[in-house]
């Protein structure tokens, strides 16, 4: 019961203004790279820190919201990016002044902050905006410092979880469906082939027999016309005519 009271008193004591702004991921324009495996993109806090012309506006990135103390100073070991997240629960980066965030925003400008874009900072740069080490989730807020005194802050953002890449071996290439065309070709051709084979068998089976082709026998053009002999009545038939 004392704790909430104390927390209520603390901001009053330090006179930190809590601005009614929540950092959000950029919605317009739609960005393909809004969230990648090690970066994410926030809207710049335009028209939020009005009146704080002399303040430095820092971005605080935390894995543990509660562990961050507004009195923490940027550029020190306690807020160094290099120790994040193992020994440092929240780091401060992307230092800017109100001049960097003119208000109102010019139409057509893309005003974003890409967290994680500095891939080659020197080892001792504590305020490095380096790529995030894991998928998170992360919370961010903006903090305005005058000198080293915090004067204003925004609310904490919603938790931001980064992408995790799956292994390509999880892509299944084995269940390939058979298209309708291929099935049609196979069945129709198989049926046709079967009919032809049956026809061939029928032909060979009835080789020499008249039973199938009796009604449409026809003669070879160069062969001799020979009248068929009926052996039972051979004495009744006239002789063959050439």
């Amino acid at each position, binding site marked *: 019961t004392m704790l909430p009271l104390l927390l209520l008193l603390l901001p009053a004591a330090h006179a930190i203004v809590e601005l009614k702004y929540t950092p959000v991921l950029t919605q317009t*324009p*739609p*960005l*393909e*790279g*809004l969230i*990648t*495996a*090690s*970066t994410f*993109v926030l809207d710049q806090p335009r028209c939020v820190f009005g009146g704080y012309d002399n303040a430095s506006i820092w971005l605080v990135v935390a894995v543990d919201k509660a562990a961050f103390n507004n009195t923490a100073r940027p550029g020190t070991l306690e807020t160094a990016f290099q120790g994040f997240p193992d020994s440092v629960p929240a780091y401060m980066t992307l230092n800017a002044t109100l001049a960097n965030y003119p208000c109102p925003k010019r139409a057509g400008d*893309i005003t*974003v902050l*890409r967290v*994680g*874009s500095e*891939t080659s900072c020197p080892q001792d740069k504590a305020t490095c905006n380096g*790529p995030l080490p894991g998928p998170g989730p992360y919370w961010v807020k903006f903090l305005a410092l005058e000198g080293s005194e915090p004067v204003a802050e925004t609310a904490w953002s919603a938790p931001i979880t980064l*992408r995790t*890449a*799956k*292994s*390509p*071996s*999880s*892509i*299944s*290439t084995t269940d*390939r*469906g*058979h*298209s309708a*065309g*291929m099935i049609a*070709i*196979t069945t*129709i*051709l*198989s049926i*046709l*082939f079967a*009919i*032809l*084979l049956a*026809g*061939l068998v*029928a*032909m060979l089976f*009835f080789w*020499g027999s008249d039973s*199938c*082709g009796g009604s*449409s*026998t*026809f*003669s*070879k*053009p160069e*062969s001799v016309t020979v009248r068929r002999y009926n052996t039972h009545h051979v004495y009744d038939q006239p002789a063959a005519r050439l």
Partner: protein
Amino acid sequence: MAKSDDCVHILQGLLVFGNVVIGMCGIALTAECIYFVSNPHGVYPLLKATENNDIYAAAWIGIFVGLALFALSILGIIGVIKASRTLLLVYIILMLITFAFEMASCITAATYRDSLTPSFFLKQMLERYQKSEPANNSDNEVTKTWDELMLQNHCCGVLGPSDWQEYMSAFRLTHNDADYPWPRKCCVLDAQGLPLNLDGCKLGVPGYYNSNGCYDAISGPVNTHAWGVAWFGFAILCWAFCVLLGTMFYWSGIEY
């Protein structure tokens, strides 16, 4: 006898006509398959990398089947005109063998075409594109082919740039995610081949990167190739079926 003679002549005429068509189609099939074999389309290295050359087996069979069809059609015409039982029997049997080969070729071409799904290309691209220790030359070919594909067709990945984000890849092992969410070839490039706006490309701002996938560009030529072999062969076989049935009927009616 006169009526039967007319029927005979009509049947002979039809069979000769049928064989002429088969002969011409045989030549056409040979020409088409020679074209496919000698003129591999741009994505051939991707197919070759899988060591699955079914589509080329189908085309090679097509060449020889076409020539066989042409030769057999001549044999068939002679057999029909001379009404020789032996010739026609030889013709029928050889045509059936050719029919079987062409059937195999069509089915192979169609089945192979079905196996070239987006997942197939996706897996190959993720595992081989920009592989740092290329196991053999085909990995380099895969990389070069993909670079050309993405450059010429203004596309990225198989289904889109998110392919590079959703899956781990050989590319990701050598290029960190913050600097290269997707390969540079996915960016809109200027005349010198440099990205128009590198930050815009990395962010994925519409207009500075290629947002559509390359699968359509790949499957177009592959489809033409496969269906060209498969459906044309199928059409020839259907026609040959009719001619063969007619020939069998004619054969059974010849006096011996």
